[in-house]
């Protein structure tokens, strides 16, 4: 019930504010027509010089350059080039040989037999 009365109160508020909102809207509508024609003339003039009204602004060009050079532009602290990772192309025979050498070294150092090691 209280939410219903809250809605009622807001409805009263909206009703009082509505004329002002409409006034602001109508002012912007009139200003908008003026600006529209101004931008229309500008667009027309730029069209004949081979440019467009919708060309990138200097800020857009800068931002695009940064995005191009940066991989992860959402994180400004991310490095431009990826960090070198160790290679995963590991030779299996080399791995077995290394493992065997390590086992032999361990056995020699600890003086243990093959079966006792289990």
């Amino acid at each position: 019930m209280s939410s219903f009365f809250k809605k009622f109160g807001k409805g009263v508020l909206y009703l009082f504010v509505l004329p002002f909102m409409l006034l602001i809207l109508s002012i912007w509508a009139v200003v908008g027509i003026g600006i529209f024609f101004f931008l229309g003339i500008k667009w027309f003039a730029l069209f004949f010089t081979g440019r467009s009204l919708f060309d990138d602004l200097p800020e857009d060009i800068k931002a695009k350059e940064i995005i191009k050079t940066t991989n992860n532009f959402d994180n400004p602290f991310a490095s431009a080039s990826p960090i070198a990772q160790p290679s995963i192309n590991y030779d299996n025979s080399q791995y077995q040989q290394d493992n065997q050498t390590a086992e032999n070294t361990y056995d020699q150092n600890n003086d243990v037999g093959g079966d006792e090691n289990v």
Partner: protein
Amino acid sequence: MYNLISLSESDKRFIFALALVILLLFVIVWYIGFIITRVMKSQGKKLDDAVHDVVVTRVITDPKSFKKYARKKNWRMFFKQAAVPLLICLIASLTLVIGNSIMKDFSYNPFSSVDKGFASLLFLWDFDNPDYYTTVFGMKVLSSWPPLTNTPHFVVNAIPSYIFVPGILVGGVWYLIVCQAFIARRLRIRALSKSIFEKSLDNYNQSQAFNYFNNNQQ
């Protein structure tokens, strides 16, 4: 004194019904306002797409240049969006002017139901007739439904009006929605210019921050 405020049973019912209607009316107004607010928020959000890159890449680092840049973008978006509705209005107006020039008649009302008006296509009732009204508490209330004064009929000479009136209505309403979106984006610019570059000291304790730096240096 007591007799002055005594009301009949029908008066009480009428007041109760009136109060209920007013209450519901305000709730409906709230609902319309709520929908408008929601629509304006979603319209304002569309600005984010236009200004996202320059903010994230830190090309713009202060509220003043952000406002300047975002307003430029906003006017461009407005120009793009307003082009179609204003073109519709322009074509509709030109149709009427050309039609009237051919018929050599600029005197009629294109909205009226007589002769060459658009309302010849509508059902119309005689709401102007005072015989169909009654007075309750000093207010004029409709007592019975008035008779039909116009049934839809096609008039060849009214063709310019048939194009002009829907064109101007559709174009006008569309243009007003575009203006509303423009205002919504403007409000968004103001809000973003404050929030993006905000330096807040909420939950900040200098002594803790000092200790943290000292510990890390050791």
